[in-house]
């Protein structure tokens, strides 16, 4: 099964959130944990991006592309880009991969490629 990034759907009003929050931003009426999980779409367009040259010391690369992507359902997500020459507005598609590794932990997150 492919790994997914989950959005959180309010059981009271149906509004979608990413990442998880305790209270729905739209209706503000849910009880704790009253959200259903729904996989986020993986395709979208690149809203903005940067190439970071001064990464935290645990990153073993000299630079990294990061971006914010507007997904097909209108939601947005921050992720890493494996795109050599990113352009604003370009179509992209995401995969869930290891994005940051420490000694005893592996963090999975979304990595976008040209669509």
């Amino acid at each position, binding site marked *: 099964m492919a790994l997914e990034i989950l959005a959180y759907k309010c059981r009271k009003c149906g509004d979608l959130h990413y990442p998880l929050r305790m209270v729905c931003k739209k209706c503000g009426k849910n009880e704790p944990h009253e959200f259903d999980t729904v996989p986020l779409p993986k395709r979208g367009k690149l809203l*903005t991006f940067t190439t*970071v040259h*001064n990464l935290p010391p645990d990153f073993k690369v000299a630079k990294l592309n990061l971006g914010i992507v507007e997904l097909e359902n209108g939601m947005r997500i*921050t992720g890493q880009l494996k795109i050599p020459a990113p352009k*604003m507005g370009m179509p992209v598609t995401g995969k869930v991969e290891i994005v940051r590794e420490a000694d005893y932990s592996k963090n999975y997150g979304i990595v976008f490629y040209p669509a």
Partner: protein
Amino acid sequence: MREVYVVGIGITSFTRLEYPLSEIAAYPAMVALKDAGLSKVDHVYVANMASARLNHQSGLASAVVDSLSLTPAGATTIENGPASGGSAILQGFLGIASGMFDVALVTGAERLREVNNLEATEVVAALAHPLAEQIYGVTLPSLAAMFTRLYMQKYGVTERHLGMVAVKNHDNALDNFYAHLHEKITIEGILDSPEASTNNPYVAEPLRFFDCCPVSDGGACVILASKEVAQKLGKPMIRLAGVGQATDTHCVHERAEPTDLLAVRGAAEQAYKMSGLTPSHVHVAELHDAFTILEIAESEEVGFFKKGEGHLALERGETRLNGKLPINTSGGLKAKGHPVGATGIGQAHEIVLQLRGEAGKRQVKEAQVGFTCNFGGFGNNVVCLIFKRED
């Protein structure tokens, strides 16, 4: 609510300081107490962001109040990211305004140079969302960079405009003894010359080295008091006439319009409302230019210029020391420096100097109303303050 006045100010150089954090907080407090002519206070507020992680010290206020021999006065440490300083002033304001205290000492300090610049960047990156931003390597410069790219596309801001902010603020800092960077820079040197890419490399594209504030140690203090106490002390009557604070989404990607800074707009509106003043009354302002783009964007959100036109006012020279509305006369975070917990108090220090007419070569003529914007996270927690000279 009672009226609140600034009766004393103090500051250290913003630079690399080789003495303990509690002393960096206590030294400007001593200067401020001397300035005010006070030896006792009712409460001590200490603003700091990262002492537990950087300096192996928690409960900083307890150390500072004792070091100053001000015990048994109450003491509280305030951690609110880069807006810690402004937040501490707001708490001191509430203490005096409510009538609970007559004198509140508000000091701030940070010792970031205990670690190297990449580690310092990582400590500051802890402000970002742990699961939706931090895991990807998001740093504050990277959030500012993505914001800048949208601003450039939407409003026509260019690298040259960003460079103009840096040149202006470096120029202002040349006349500020306490500034971190005393270094004249030019557009040619940072953008146009063949050496520009070496002088001014990218940090997070399109932001370059000279678009980012330095990593500074430093401390700053203001002492707030009731009108009765202020009148007795006989210093120029500088009233903290308006305070405001507002927040925005933790994740930058969740904002409906990603080029808006709604927390800046909200905090400024509250401060104007309380003071009964408007942007057109402001004579001098300190804005939170941790990145050059922020001076431009904040100058719009606090109402000095229309949205999308801050860079045009900059081009016309309106924000220079001799312009219509001088911004960051101290050198700003860009050149005065950014000792995170002390920054908001450092901004207030500059405004009080200006309103007292004690700013020396960088004095704005007949300044009566001053404004500060202290920006926490990437715009998710913002404090704005308005100061007014009354005598």
